[in-house]
């Protein structure tokens, strides 16, 4: 029995993710504390807002240790979205934030003297052969380039999606990327992602 848990902190856009899950004919539940994650078969960490605020929310909700147990020890399939991807790395330039460090690397800002920041709109992810919706001022620079699942270009070429074992993450908003995004989510739930 599939149990999709979507982490809900007040700044996140968890409701949009739930809508997308429902569109796929599945049900998603909000997770607001560690206990909510216990029976999860899939965990999604959506994100809007800043890396610092997201880390603070996770800490205040007591979610960091339960998430690490579920994802790092029990290998539950996990999908981080937008800031939910960025905080998987060791450090973000945004408010000089120490992040989860599940993946090696850091998060840096686009150069606003060269492009409009935030990046806002549909960008093509070459490896996934489709357009996805991005809203980000910062992007991840993985230390281990093997985890890069897709890249896009905005002034620089950046990691648009990463995967490492059971950990998946997209800088773009899969839940707001039309049919391409819904398909990616469907594949994540069916674990046929590639």
């Amino acid at each position, binding site marked *: 029995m599939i149990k999709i848990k979507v982490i809900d902190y007040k*700044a996140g856009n968890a409701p949009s993710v739930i*809508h997308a899950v429902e569109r796929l004919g599945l049900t998603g539940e909000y997770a607001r504390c560690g206990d909510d994650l216990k029976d999860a078969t899939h965990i999604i960490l959506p994100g809007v807002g800043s890396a610092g605020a997201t880390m603070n929310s996770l800490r205040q909700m007591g979610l960091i240790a339960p998430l690490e147990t579920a994802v790092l020890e029990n290998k539950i399939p996990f999908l981080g979205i937008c800031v939910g991807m960025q905080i998987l790395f060791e450090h973000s330039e945004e408010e000089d934030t120490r992040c989860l460090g599940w993946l090696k690397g850091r998060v840096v800002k686009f150069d606003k003297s060269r492009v409009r920041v935030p990046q806002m*709109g549909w*960008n093509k992810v070459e490896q996934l052969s489709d357009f996805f919706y991005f809203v980000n001022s910062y992007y991840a620079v993985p230390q281990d380039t093997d985890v890069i699942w897709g890249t896009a270009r905005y002034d620089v070429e950046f990691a648009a999606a990463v995967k490492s074992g059971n950990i998946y993450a997209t800088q773009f908003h899969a839940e707001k990327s039309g049919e391409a995004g819904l398909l990616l989510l469907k594949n994540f739930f069916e674990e046929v992602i590639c």
Partner: protein
Amino acid sequence: MLTKRLIACFDIIDGRVTKAVRFQDNIDVAPAHELAESMYRAQIDELIFYDITASNEQRPIDIKVVASVAEKVFIPFTVGGGIKTLDDMYAALKAGAEKISVDSMAVRNPKIIEQGAKAFGSQCIVLSTQVKRTSEPKFKSGYEVFIDGARVATGLDAVEWLKQGQELGAGEVCLNSIDNDGTLGGYDIELMKLAENAVSIPLIASGGAGEPRHLLELFTQTQSGAAIISSMLYSPRLERNFSVEELKKELSENNINVRI
């Protein structure tokens, strides 16, 4: 590469999309969620909804409409009208909106921009502004900001207001030319060029689109990342409407990068 966005803009009264010319004489078009879904299927890049009577009627935005759209549409959408507090913003985001547009309210209380950006991130806060050409020398940019359905002059210089909005944390600007709105004569290119030099956040041009070449002019002559189109798509007042596909094809054939 980031593509140029076509954004359909809906003026909502009682859950239905209406169409006005120069902020007057709204005529009924269709239920909001139906039109939104058909635009989504047609590959529109983004949607904006203005609950245009919320402010006047002193009530918050109609959340039922927001929720009904969010169930059908899996692209970003912005809502505006009647947003006064952080709780109003949160209610709209929770119902499934991606971004909040602030307009008249932000002029009355600029702090709402800062508070919204702090609580939900700059990317959530779209500063929508209605501006009108003026020859009065006190407006250095040549444009003045209007509020309350473009009826009330504020004495604010358009460019100064955009700079202040960016400073306070707005993540995007949607700039509507009152002079061009509903004329179908093209966007105010000069206005968009002023704006792009004033701020570094993304810009949406609004007001005046009537033909595909107006989009081409906007995207080749300015840095605007997005264009509001509404009459062209669905106004029953027009002899001919254009499909999103037609518009994107035209742009693509002229080397404008679009999602196609």
